[in-house]
């Protein structure tokens, strides 16, 4: 059974695209046939973060409009087996995403893929709703910061009212909290919301925490998802998140006592 997972947050700049790229790559590394779709029509960027921007010929909207078929638009990742990217259109606007069109493409992808990752645009408008509408599970990317937490709560509300599972009274979307740009040092000084604080406010289960890391910028500079850099804190954190998502319990990382403190609760 294939699963549709939306990466969402409400607020912009919290790490949705970084997470989409890393998470999809991680799932593919573990042998799952995975496709990641950029829903940010008009502002496509997933292709850049994944380093395939020069290989985009057709996009998601072309496929919805029947101007190209899926095989023409899907970009096969050059580094990781089983990984495909469906880029967003750069020229159209978000209205080009129709519910019917999105439904048809997702149905077609379901026949072929184990995981379909939907990289949501920021905001709570049409594009974001299209990205979450058909989801089975959701990763809610949140920074330990007031505006991000509030927007995440808003998105959680939409997941339970504006999606197919909510409207057709099916079992609810499974929600996972992913805290990104976390700085343990500042938390200890009382300058930043802690994991526990964010969890208490949003009241959904925690999938993992990505520490603030200089490696994230380096990764997007070079178009290599950070999860492929296994030496880095952020890369390791994403690997652990993928493992946990797949139902494993990865051993706690000892490095700097950071992860042992994070997950040793």
């Amino acid at each position, binding site marked *: 059974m294939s699963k549709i997972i939306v990466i969402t947050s409400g607020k912009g700049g919290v790490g949705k695209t970084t997470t989409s790229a890393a998470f999809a790559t991680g799932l593919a590394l573990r042998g799952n046939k995975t496709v990641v779709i950029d829903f940010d029509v008009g502002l496509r960027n997933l292709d850049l973060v994944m380093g395939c921007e020069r290989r985009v010929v057709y996009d998601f909207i072309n496929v919805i409009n029947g101007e190209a078929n899926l095989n023409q638009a899907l970009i096969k990742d050059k580094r990781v087996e089983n990984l495909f990217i469906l880029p967003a259109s750069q020229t159209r606007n978000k209205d080009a995403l129709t519910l019917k069109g999105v439904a048809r493409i997702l149905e077609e992808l379901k026949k072929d893929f184990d995981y379909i990752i939907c990289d949501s645009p920021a905001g709570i408008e049409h594009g974001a709703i299209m990205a979450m509408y058909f989801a089975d599970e959701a990763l809610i990317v949140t920074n330990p910061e007031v505006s991000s937490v509030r927007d995440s*709560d808003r998105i959680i509300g939409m997941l339970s009212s504006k999606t197919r599972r909510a409207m057709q009274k099916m079992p609810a979307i499974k929600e996972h909290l992913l805290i990104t740009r976390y700085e343990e040092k500042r938390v200890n000084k009382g300058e930043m919301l802690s994991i526990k604080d964010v969890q208490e406010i949003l009241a959904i289960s925690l999938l993992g925490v990505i520490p603030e890391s200089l490696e994230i910028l380096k990764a997007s500079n070079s178009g290599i998802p950070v999860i492929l850099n296994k030496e880095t804190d952020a890369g390791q954190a994403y690997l652990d998140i993928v493992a946990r998502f797949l139902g494993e319990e990865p051993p706690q990382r000892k490095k700097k006592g950071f992860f042992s403190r994070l997950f040793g609760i």
Partner: protein
Amino acid sequence: MRIIYYIISLFSSQKSANLAKERLQIIVTQERRKRRYLPLLQQELLEVVRKYASIEEEDIQIHLEKQGNYEVLEMNIALPK
């Protein structure tokens, strides 16, 4: 000098993270209540009407519309023949 500032900050005011948590808890609770009130109202109305007539959940429709400074609550209840 830094140490002195640090010591002062320890005693002077509340930690900003605590402040953030308190403010978020208040606003998030308020916003959740607002979001939930329509479905709750619909559910409760359903129960009341059901005391007198047998209707399904789809038979009650509620819409909230903003018109300038006030909100209009429109309610449609379809009763069986």
